[in-house]
């Protein structure tokens, strides 16, 4: 099965830095996250989640959790900022 992130990793010679998490922001309306380790905070304005080695904060408006799986999650809404701490 085709996996977008796997294909990119194969194309890269040194792909060790892409092991922790992967995020795709689609037009600021949908955020796809791979490699999260649990949501820390959930609200309409801010969703923060853990990854292996830190915390990612997503800020926006009318944010909604449209899918939550053990490794991946999808956030919809008006995404304004994504910050990794």
């Amino acid at each position, binding site marked *: 099965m085709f996996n977008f992130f796997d294909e990119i990793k194969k194309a890269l010679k040194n792909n060790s830095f892409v092991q922790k998490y992967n995020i795709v922001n689609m037009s600021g309306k949908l955020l796809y996250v791979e490699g999260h380790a*649990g*949501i*820390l*905070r*959930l*609200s*309409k304005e801010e969703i923060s989640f853990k990854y292996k080695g830190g915390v990612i904060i997503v800020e926006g408006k009318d944010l*909604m*959790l*449209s*899918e*939550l*799986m*053990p490794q991946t999650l999808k956030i919809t809404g008006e995404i304004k900022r994504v910050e990794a701490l």
Partner: protein
Amino acid sequence: MKRRNYHLFEIKGLNQERFFNQLCKDFEVFEIDRLQKNHCKFKVKYHDGKKVKKILLQNNYQIISEKKAGFFNNLHIFLTSYGLIAGIVLSVFLYCLQSPFIQKVEVRGVENYLEIEEFVEKNLPTKNKNAIDISQIEHMINYHFDEISFVSGAVIGQSLVINVKTEIVPPEMKDEFAPIVSQYDGVITDIELVQGTLKVEVGDIIQKGQILVEGYVVNSQGEQFNIQPKANIYMDIWVEGEATHFNERLVTYRTGNKVIQVCVTLFGQQFYSNGKTCNFEQFETQQTSQMLNKNNILPFVVTKTTYYELKSQKITSTFEQEKENVIELAKQNCLQKLQGCEIIKKENYQIIEGAGSTTVRYVITANLLVQGENESLHKQT
């Protein structure tokens, strides 16, 4: 930032994303951990726990486990599990805090104890039990109140108890030269004068309150010397007693039915009541109040009110039917007025008829000894 006060839920159910989106509108949701597709853990604020649980159950989610943590949870557990112990500890602490101090001054042995209590409370140098000098207080009371002959103080519990004895004045010191006065109306039959000045003679008709022997003597030079009057005076006295019979009278008596109301009050506010009410048409009450316990920490007062049912009955009888009883009653009333050591010389009675009533007047003539110095003297004082 890691939260210390939280309510952790572990739930199972479908469409959890939608649930979380709904939940985060009203509550703060944090640390969501998706374990499997239909299985996750999440935390909410400690105080939101109950509401969130209700919503979870309404949405048919299966709650696998719950856990509460934080200061408020520990406080709740402490209060529910150790509330009694905490109360006792607090009571002991408060008791220890106030036990070294005098809370009450109690004066015993005199009628005007309020005045002495007020004086002691005003002049108490300190309320600390250990710092109070009892002997100083005793001296102070003795010095300030002339009528007091003996004072002793002691600290009992948190009360300063002061025992007081008033000055006892012997009768010869108090009314040494008071005259002998007759307590009855009568006729003098015999006189044995010991000392003093005689003011009556044998055969004199005496009224109640009349002086028999004065407390002085006059010598041949006309000088007057006060002296304690002493004499044995015999008198014939008349004592009257009355009893009235009514042809119609209303007698009220208890039926034996009663209602007992019990209420417990604390600082004047009702704390408990057994809720019984009195429905009797006629009743009389008896009320008793007492402290539930003897300490001053929680002054619960138990008030017991007993309502006795009464009934009235109209009794009709003629004087002739009750004549003997009425005469006997009049005689008893008459005898009550005698001291008990008199020699009864004559008895008679008189019947006085009125409108709807008949009165019996019983008269006893008795011979009485008036002994001067003590008996009569004390009576008049």
